[in-house]
């Protein structure tokens, strides 16, 4: 009897619960009232739910009752959760707003050119860094095909928007590189020291960069190393200029790569003509070691690179009329370690340290100049995602640098100086999205310089508005500062930092096939270094008495596959640049600054021939130089500079590649203006010499072999 009661009670309970179906209903729309079709609407922890209909409406039954969590989500929208009694879940109106974390949201870092994996902002693809004809595997040379740079073929370093090479700082994984370029002499272009094969992408900003970066008046180039190598493999490169080997071992959580190369231009110059009169053609060793380790929370990367090189030439001294023997010996070591870790869903931390050591010895006959640099950079930065619409970054860093100079003649030192300083800094920036289409970034950076005892606060602001599906407009304002070069700091420490202010406005259009960017900017300088020439190789009266301004327009157009298998981009920069600094008697356009720069890069893949052809054309208008025979300063202009480079990569098998590259195919006779003696000769005239490239043409042939277990891999991506 009792059992029966219990059993009927049980069935009663069960049937009651089954009968107590509650209807949940409502509509899902956008803010504007547009229905959202296919949104997932359900009660958390249950099977009860549905997807919204064509008109955005939904309804389903549930046996649950009381307070429950109703979850509403749809791809590309911010998910919503509502807790309320099931009985009240009727005729709900749920408005979702587009998530700012989606791919088509407005992009804040508008003035930055990126190469790499982030298709949202990348204008160059990872391969482009190495397959651009004429770049000869130099990251910096590939970057010079972007607008905002002035190409100086006899220098090779990065010149951004009228700033000199020192005004653009180079970083690896966010950590400062202290001496990024190889040391050269006699108009031979420098190269970036670091192998492009190590990097998965770069981020290049020609203005308006955020508060994380300081000590740069004009530009930032941040190169990101590969997180995870592809496989265990060995590579061998045989080149007309030397040979290289590399090996990568890939384990489950960690990997090690090393590469080494020996470059010797002696055999090349036995064959090729050059204007340089070599005493010792360039030769040197370089080696790199990368170690990466995945931890449960993040990724540790250790990187060490070292190189040693010598070169010597004979050149004419315009003052004495004698032949000088100039020799350079350079040693460089750079190391950095970074740790990126995810602290929680919303918080990440990156920290790192870099150390650099560089020593140059330049000998001109009996005169010897030795410069040394020791540097250290330590940084830690947090990023917190507060919501889909707000994120906050903050961090601190300290840079220490010691520069030494020793000048001697016939073994007797006549000048010796070292200068060292700490630059601690703190930075923060806030990204705020009003909506998916409108956002700003507000940042500030504080810096102290222990030598100059200066305090700087640099505010920075970027605004971005997305006008349509494919285009956006943005503007930025920021204040930047940078300490003077070590030469001036050594002689006078009452100086202060040089400063610049950037104003820019940018229009960006992007579809699958086309990327168009237009940017106008104005950059003003103040407190630039001025000095007087006392005698040769010695300066005096240095002060922060200079100023100037650069303004211009940068245009970039990239077309992918507009023609089948053809990839191309065009960059044009117009620049007006005048400043009064150094020993300039008046406002003038500096020698490294050209008004018009054009580069056209094209690449075509020929599937039948297993080959890629690359053609790059660059044009720079005449370079300013000063003719002391004329009364006005820096008023002369050289002939425009043209270069047409071609490269051909042929895949013999997937593991063997032949690569041929030739610069200045039409053998145009380029000129860079004239150089003059520092004092007039007996006839009252200055001795002069036409500056021409050392080599009218440079050719390169390389044969690359990959050895790996997996035979389908190759080095094509390394060309």
């Amino acid at each position, binding site marked *: 009897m*009792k*059992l029966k009661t*219990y*059993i009927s009670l*049980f069935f009663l309970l*069960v049937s009651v619960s089954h009968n107590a179906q509650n209807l949940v209903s409502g509509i899902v729309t956008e803010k504007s009232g547009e229905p959202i*079709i*296919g949104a*997932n609407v*359900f009660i*958390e*922890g*249950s*099977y009860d*739910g549905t*997807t919204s209909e064509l008109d955005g409406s939904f309804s389903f039954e549930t046996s649950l009752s009381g307070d429950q969590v109703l*979850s509403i989500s749809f*791809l*590309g929208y911010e998910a919503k959760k509502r807790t309320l009694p099931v009985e009240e879940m009727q005729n709900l109106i749920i408005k979702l707003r587009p998530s700012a974390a*989606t*791919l*088509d949201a407005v992009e804040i870092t508008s003035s930055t050119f990126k190469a790499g*994996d982030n*298709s949202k902002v*990348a204008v160059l*693809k*990872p*391969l482009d860094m190495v397959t651009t004809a004429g770049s000869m595997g130099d990251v910096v040379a590939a970057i010079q095909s972007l607008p905002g740079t002035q190409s100086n073929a006899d220098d090779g370093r990065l010149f951004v928007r009228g700033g000199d090479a020192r005004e653009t700082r180079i970083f690896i994984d966010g950590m400062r590189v202290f001496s990024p370029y190889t040391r050269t002499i006699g108009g031979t272009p420098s190269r970036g020291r670091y192998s492009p094969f190590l990097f*998965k992408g770069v981020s290049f900003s020609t203005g308006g960069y955020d508060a994380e970066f300081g000590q740069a008046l004009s530009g930032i180039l941040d190169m990101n190393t590969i997180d*995870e*190598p*592809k*496989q265990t493999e060995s590579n061998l490169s045989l080149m007309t200029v030397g040979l290289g080997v590399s090996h990568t071992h890939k384990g489950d959580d960690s990997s090690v790569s090393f590469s080494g190369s020996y470059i010797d231009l002696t055999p090349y110059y036995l064959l090729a003509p050059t204007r340089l009169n070599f005493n010792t053609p360039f030769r040197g060793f370089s080696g790199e070691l990368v170690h990466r380790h995945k931890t449960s929370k993040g990724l540790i990367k250790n990187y060490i690179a070292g190189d040693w090189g010598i070169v010597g030439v004979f050149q004419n001294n315009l003052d004495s009329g004698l032949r000088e023997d100039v020799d350079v010996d350079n040693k460089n070591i750079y190391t950095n370690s970074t740790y990126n870790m995810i602290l929680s869903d919303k918080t990440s931390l990156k920290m790192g340290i870099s150390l650099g050591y560089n020593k140059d010895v330049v000998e001109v006959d009996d005169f010897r100049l030795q410069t040394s640099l020791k540097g250290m950079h330590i940084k830690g930065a947090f990023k917190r995602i507060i919501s889909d619409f707000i994120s906050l970054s903050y961090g601190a860093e300290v840079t220490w640098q010691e520069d030494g100079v020793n000048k001697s003649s016939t073994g007797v030192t006549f000048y010796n100086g070292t200068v060292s300083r700490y630059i601690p800094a703190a930075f923060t920036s806030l990204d705020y999205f009003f909506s998916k289409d409108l956002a700003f970034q507000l940042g500030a950076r504080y810096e102290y310089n222990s030598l100059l005892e200066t305090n700087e606060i640099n505010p920075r602001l970027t605004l971005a508005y997305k006008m349509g599906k494919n285009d956006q407009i943005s503007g930025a304002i920021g204040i930047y500062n940078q300490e003077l070069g070590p030469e001036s700091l050594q002689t006078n420490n009452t100086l202060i930092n040089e400063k610049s202010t950037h104003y820019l406005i940018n229009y960006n259009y992007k579809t*699958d096939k086309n990327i168009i960017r237009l940017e106008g900017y104005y950059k003003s300088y103040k407190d630039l270094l001025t000095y007087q020439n006392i005698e040769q190789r010695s300066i005096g009266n240095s002060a922060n008495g200079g100023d100037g301004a650069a303004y211009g327009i940068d245009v970039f157009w990239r077309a*992918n596959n507009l023609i089948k298998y053809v*990839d191309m981009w065009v960059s044009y920069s117009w620049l007006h640049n005048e400043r009064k600094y150094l020993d300039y008697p008046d406002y003038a356009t500096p020698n490294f600054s050209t008004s018009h720069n054009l580069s056209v890069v094209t690449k075509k893949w020929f*599937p*039948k021939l*297993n080959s890629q052809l690359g053609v790059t054309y660059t044009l720079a208008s005449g370079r300013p130089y000063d003719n002391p025979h004329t009364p006005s300063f820096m008023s002369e202009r050289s002939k425009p500079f043209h270069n047409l480079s071609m490269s051909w990569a042929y*895949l013999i098998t*997937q593991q063997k590649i032949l690569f041929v590259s030739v610069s200045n195919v039409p053998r145009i006779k380029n000129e860079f203006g004239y150089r003059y003696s520092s004092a007039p000769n007996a006839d009252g005239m200055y001795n002069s010499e036409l500056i021409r490239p050392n080599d009218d043409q440079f050719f390169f042939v390389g044969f690359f072999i990959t050895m790996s277990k*997996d035979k*389908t*891999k190759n080095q094509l*991506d390394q060309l």
Partner: protein
Amino acid sequence: MKNYISLLSLIILSNIALSQGTAYEQGMKKAFSLWGENKTTEASALFERIALAEKENWLPYYYAANVLIASSFTTEDKVKTNEMLKKAEEHIAAAHVASPDNSEITTLEGVLYTGYVAMEPEVYAMQYSNKIMGLHEKALKLNPDNPRARFNKIEYEIGTARFFGQDLSTFCDALKETKPLFENPEKGDAFFPSYGVERLDATMTQCGCE
């Protein structure tokens, strides 16, 4: 009296277990049939709802990801494709938590990155190719007889070979060896993956295998 109560609670518990079991099965079946009708949004939403209710079970997450990845290959809009793949990434991460070191989830993750490569080969091919191969290899280490891991790996190699215009018939032996593995599906959950032989057959035809 005590006995009655225990009996009663036993009945209730088994009843609940049974009803949940059927709800799971019904839900999964419903989701598969939606998928079959090409209602991918609904199918993936339902798999996701089941997954959230059955957090310990990797299969609903696996299929929620699978639906999105499969339809990403036929979606033209890049923004949409990217959103689908991002969401699939989340599901795969959740599936990994529910079942660590699972060969099926690992090889599906390889297919997920193939989705990015298919979307924008110029951007992602270099970045992900080795990751993709690595994931398939890892899946094979976890279960050397997983036919999907084998096939996915071969299929990616075929894609690369096709790009370089190479002879595809060299893959026939590997494909042939994989086929019998599809015939002995793993026992366990009724919804354990057992699909893929049709794609293998189609690929064999494309490669000109007999």
